[in-house]
Structure formats: C-alpha cells, structure tokens
C-alpha cells in the first residue's frame, strides 16, 4: 500500500494523450459543435454508423453466412422491429426466417430454444428484456442448463437479444436492468455492448457462439452514432466474448462500467481531468458473464482505486460482483481506498421526470465517487 500513496500528487506527467479529443470521440453522441468536431482525431475508418445499424448489419450478415440462423419475436418482421433493429430483414429473407410471433414470450422463447436443441441457430428478440421475465424459465432452465444436464450432449446455440434497462419515462415495469440476474446463471453468456463497434462485433460473436447468449442492448443507444474503423465493417469482424476494453487509460482511479454508462463515465473522466487533475481509467466491460476480472485487476494494480458504475439495482449487482472478484485477487493489496459503487437507486423506476432522473447514475455521481476514492488516501 505504502508505495502507492500519494501517487496522484507526484506531478509525473504526461499521464495520457491529449484528453479532450480522445474522450469526445469515444463518448458519443455526434458532437454538434464544430469546435469539438474539429478536435476529434480523424477516424481511421470508413464508416459512421448508429448502434441500430450496427446490430442490423450484424444480424443480416450472420443470416447470409449461415442458413440456420433465423430471427423470431414480436413485430420483428412486418413491423420491421418494434425498435427497427430488424428493419429490412423480412424483405430480404422471407417469413420463414424472420418470424412474427403471437404475444406469448414463454411459448416462443421455449420454441426457439427447442429449435436450437434440434440444430437451428435462433436469434430470439424480446421487445424489451422486461418481457423476458415471462420467458425466464426457458432462458435459464431450458437454454442455460441443458448442455450441462445432458452431459455435454445437447448444445443450445441461441441468442436472446433486446433492449435492457431504463429508457425515458416508461415506468417501473419497463425499466428493469437484468444484467445481474442473467449474469449469475452458469451456462449463459451475457453481453452488454456500448458503442457501434461493440454492437457489431459482439452480436456477430454471439450468433456464431454455440452457447446460449443473453445480449443486452440499450434503447437509448440505438440512435447514437459512432465512427468505426474499416475492419469493424468487415463481414467477419467479431469481438471476443468475456474480454473488457480499456476505453481510456489513466493513472489515478479505475472506473468500470457497461452499456450506456460507458459514455457517461468518459464524460466524467473528461471533467475529472479538466477540473480536478484526476486521471481516470475507463473500462468498458462489454461482457457481464464471463466477467473480465483480469483486466479490472490489472487496472486496479495501476491506479489503486476502483469505482464501479451500473444502472441496475445495487443489491447483488454487477458492482457487488466486481468488488468481490477484485477482493479475491492480488488487486486487494493494491487498493488505497474502499471501492465506490455507483448504481441505480434501490427503487422501482419512478415515472415522474424528476424522480426518474435521480434514480439513475449521472455524470456528477461518477465524478463525486471518483473524488471520494481519490481523497480518501490523501495524507
């Protein structure tokens, strides 16, 4: 511990590449100010795409690559998707491969799972993951557990996907974050992408994976645009499941988060540097299960402070799991301060605008948590 005390104060510089531009390019949405736009480094790549386009192109390419891949869910075909993620797929692949279902989550999730037992590769959409609660028996008992229960004999190459977590003003029953619940189930892989690159690479990987994958998208990210490198648009671009990404390097505190909060954390990091000269390292988990504890551990060994951020409820959540995982590694000996968990409030999501805002982490909450983490070890 001793060797790391006061590292934030030693004035060793520079701690990272020019911040403002990097952060702003990573933390969408597309900036409206020409000044900021000019400050962005030139994207190496050819494309600027939204998360929705990333998901749509991923599904399209995987359906083209492998006939056994099909899409099933409510409104996925004729309506082009409740959130338009499956737009154009019916026209291209027909109604045998893009299947509109009645409103019967338990039924169609079970049916999709059964078709996977028998060799097909379904992409099963839940209009939101809230509705997956009506199908959770099949996700857990039929999909997650079957390879194990059958002694390795029956594979379940299914992807359950859809928007997860809060949107805006949609009330308690439409706003729940399911990362922790699904993340606790052995036999499932659980992914939570942030940007367009994550969406493309991880969804393609998920569809190609022979295991059941829960793919937790975010409705508010669907419209967000990101610059992506050429390679991301390649038909065979995939990202490894279970590997986190260091979005921004830093030396003073590690912020670990997933999904939409990655963008908020990056903004918080910019504020921390500009106003407080605190350099945060921001890690995008990308996967909830397997959880990339190793990357977090290495980061904490460098910064000695950890802040976890999630939109889900605090109890038994992703942050709680990160704490426990880190304490069980050698990173424990490097911590200079207690871990700070920033989470959604411990309430069903309220409808009233002012209450709802206070029920989810904001940039201020993350900055405050980082400052607490950093201040604690001041002599």
């Amino acid at each position, binding site marked *: 511990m001793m060797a790391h005390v006061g590292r934030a104060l030693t004035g060793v510089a520079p701690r990272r590449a020019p911040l403002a531009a990097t952060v702003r390019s990573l933390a969408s949405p597309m900036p409206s100010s020409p000044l900021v736009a000019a400050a962005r480094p030139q994207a190496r790549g050819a494309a600027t795409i939204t998360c929705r386009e990333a998901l749509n192109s991923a599904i399209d390419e995987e359906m083209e690559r492998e006939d056994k891949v099909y899409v099933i869910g*409510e*409104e996925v075909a*004729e*309506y082009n998707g*409740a959130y338009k993620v499956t737009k154009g797929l019916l026209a291209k692949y027909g109604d045998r491969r893009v299947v*509109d*279902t*009645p*409103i*019967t989550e*338990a*039924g169609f999730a079970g049916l999709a799972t059964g078709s996977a037992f028998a060799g097909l590769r379904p992409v099963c959409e839940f209009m939101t993951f*809230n*509705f997956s609660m*009506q199908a959770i028996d099949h996700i857990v008992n039929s999909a997650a557990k079957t390879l194990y229960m059958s002694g390795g004999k029956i594979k379940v190459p299914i992807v359950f996907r859809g928007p997860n977590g809060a*949107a*805006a*003003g*949609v*009330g*308690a*029953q*439409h706003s729940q974050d399911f990362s922790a619940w699904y993340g606790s189930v052995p036999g499932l892989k659980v992914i939570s992408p942030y940007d367009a690159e994550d969406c493309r690479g991880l969804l393609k990987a998920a569809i190609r994976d022979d295991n059941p994958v829960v793919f937790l998208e975010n409705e508010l990210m669907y419209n967000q645009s990101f610059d992506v490198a050429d390679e991301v648009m390649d038909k065979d671009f995939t990202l490894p499941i279970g590997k986190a990404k260091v979005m921004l390097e830093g030396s003073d505190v590690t912020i670990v988060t997933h999904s939409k909060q990655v963008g908020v954390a990056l903004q918080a990091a910019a504020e921390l540097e500009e106003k407080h000269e605190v350099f945060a390292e921001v890690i995008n988990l990308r996967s909830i299960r397997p959880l990339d504890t190793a990357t977090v551990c290495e980061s904490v060994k460098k910064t000695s402070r950890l802040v976890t951020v999630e939109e889900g409820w605090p109890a038994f959540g992703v942050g709680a799991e990160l704490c426990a995982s880190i304490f069980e590694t050698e990173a424990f000996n490097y911590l200079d301060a207690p871990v700070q968990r920033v989470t959604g*409030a*411990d*309430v*069903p999501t*309220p*409808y*009233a*605008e*002012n*209450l709802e805002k*206070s*029920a989810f982490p904001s940039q201020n909450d993350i900055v405050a948590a980082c400052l607490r983490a950093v201040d604690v070890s001041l002599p």
Partner: protein
Amino acid sequence: MSYPKKVQLPLTNYNSTGLNLNKSNLLVLYEDMLLGRNFEDMCAQMYYKGKMFGFVHLYNGQEAVSTGVIKLLNPTDYVCSTYRDHVHALSKGVPSKNVMAELFGKETGCSKGRGGSMHIFSAPHNFLGGFAFIAEGIPVATGAAFQSIYRQQVLKETEDLRVTACFFGDGTTNNGQFFECLNMAVLWKLPIIFVVENNQWAIGMAHHRSSSIPEIHKKAEAFGLPGIEVDGMDVLAVRQAAKQAVQRARQGDGPTLIEALTYRFRGHSLADPDELRSRQEKEAWVARDPIKKLKKYILDNEIANIGELNEIQNAVKTELEQAVKFAISSPEPNMSELKRYLFADN
C-alpha cells in the same frame, strides 16, 4: 403486404333498440363516452407539447366497451385493465384531474406520479391497474374475484358478491395466462367477466396472423364458460351483454367471456407510426363511431334534444380544461421521497 380479412361485423346478437333505458341512464352513458374521447384527445395534445412522456396508449374508438361494461358495476366491484387504461379508470370514477396529474408525473396523480400512463391505480375506486405486460392483469383480476368468493365462503360476509371486470385485447388471448385463468375461473366459479377488446391489431400484428382461431369467444367454450360476441361499437349492445354477465357472476354462476369487436382510431401508442393498417379499414371503422351512434339514437328517439347534448359536451370540455390546469399547477413529487412507498409501513 397482406391486409387482414374483412371483419364480419357481427351484427349484434342483441337488439339494441329493445333495451329499456331511461333518459338519465342514457345521458350518463353519453357523457362517459364523451369524457373518455375528449380526455384521450387532450392527452395527445399534451404529449406533443411535452407535458406527457414515455409510453401513452390511447383508447379512441373503443369507448362503448368501457362505458358499456363499467357503468353497470357497483363502486365495490373491481376493474382491472392494461396499459390502455385511462378511459377504464375514468369510467370507474377515478377523477379526470387525478388521472391527468398522474400522466404529468405530479404528486397529485392517482399513483402519486410514480406510475405514469400505464400504471393507473386507485384503491378507493377498486381500480386494480394499469399493467405494462400483456395478460398480466388477468391473473390479478382473477385473484380479486377469488377474494370475493373467499369473503363469502370463508369470512362469511353476507353482502352481494363483488364482481370483477377484466379488460384486455385480442393479442392477449394467445398468451398462456389467459387460458390458465379461464380454467381457474370456471373451476372455482369466480365472479369475473373477461372482456376482450378485440380491436383486430396488436401493435402491428393483425389478429388473424397470430391466432389459429380468430373467433376468441369460441375459446371460452373449451373451458366451460359462455362466450359472447358483441358489436363493440354499440354501447347498448355491450351493456346488454355485460348485464347478463354481471348477473351471472353476482348470483354465483361464475365467469363469462365477452368478445367486443371494436377498433382503435389511433395507433398502438403515440410513438407508433401506424403504417400497417390501411386507410380504407380505418375509415370504415371511424364511420361506426360509437359516440355518434349513441347520439343519433338519443336524438332519433327524442330522448333528449341537441341543446342538452351540447351542454354535456361543454361540461366535459370544461372539466378537462380544469383537469389540465390542475395537473400543470400541481407540484412534482418531492425528491426526498424517492424511496417512499417501498414498504407498507413507510
């Protein structure tokens, strides 16, 4: 793109001109439908002005079903609804200003601003919600009916059985919970009325594309309860069917299923582009507007004159203007009370 098969208008099984309704009852029905229609139109206005947010599902066109059923119920009877719940709440007696305040997310809303459009609740009016998921309200309603029997058989209460009316749509009738509850309701002779508001569409899914047997009332037969199909654009026909169902339930003969054929004049929600329903189809149904139909009936039979009807219209407009004023001027919930109402003792 295939359009739905032309719906065979059922032609009411009940002769609506044979109903012996007095003037005051008819005017109550007229006012209730007008209130529902105007309330929903006001919601649309407020939504586009940014006063309302999130998901808002409007009921325009289906007023005859809400009014036809709920106006027969006692205050102690229960109503359970879906996310398309504003008008059911109004028909049940929840004051329009409290529903409006709820939609604005204010402390004076019937759910104290915590619920929103899809979660209208009112204990004093025995209005049990307000649910986001299809079919979720059906077991809840069945439970209220179970409670009613329990009071009589276990708690030995002597008052009349309380009836529960449960409203849901065509899409819901393919969901397991629907079938599970039909079974239990018949098994235990629960005093419940399952009211299917078959408006032919579930978001963008046409009824005939999702249902192996489109005639929903026929499914009741398989479980042993009567299934009645009725013209959902005729408030008197709905009322007549509901009257029989309420009577059955209250005298302990168990559940009834009413399939009301109706239509929603607007999209699934205010966010729905509503691209899949044809203009011809919409026009055909709009021509059968239930409010216009009742108005014509009242005037043709000289039950009231146009002046009286206009007075009612004006009263409704005034009520809604006041509801909006009330909602706008009401305070938002107190931020310090974010965690209030988590447990019953706080």
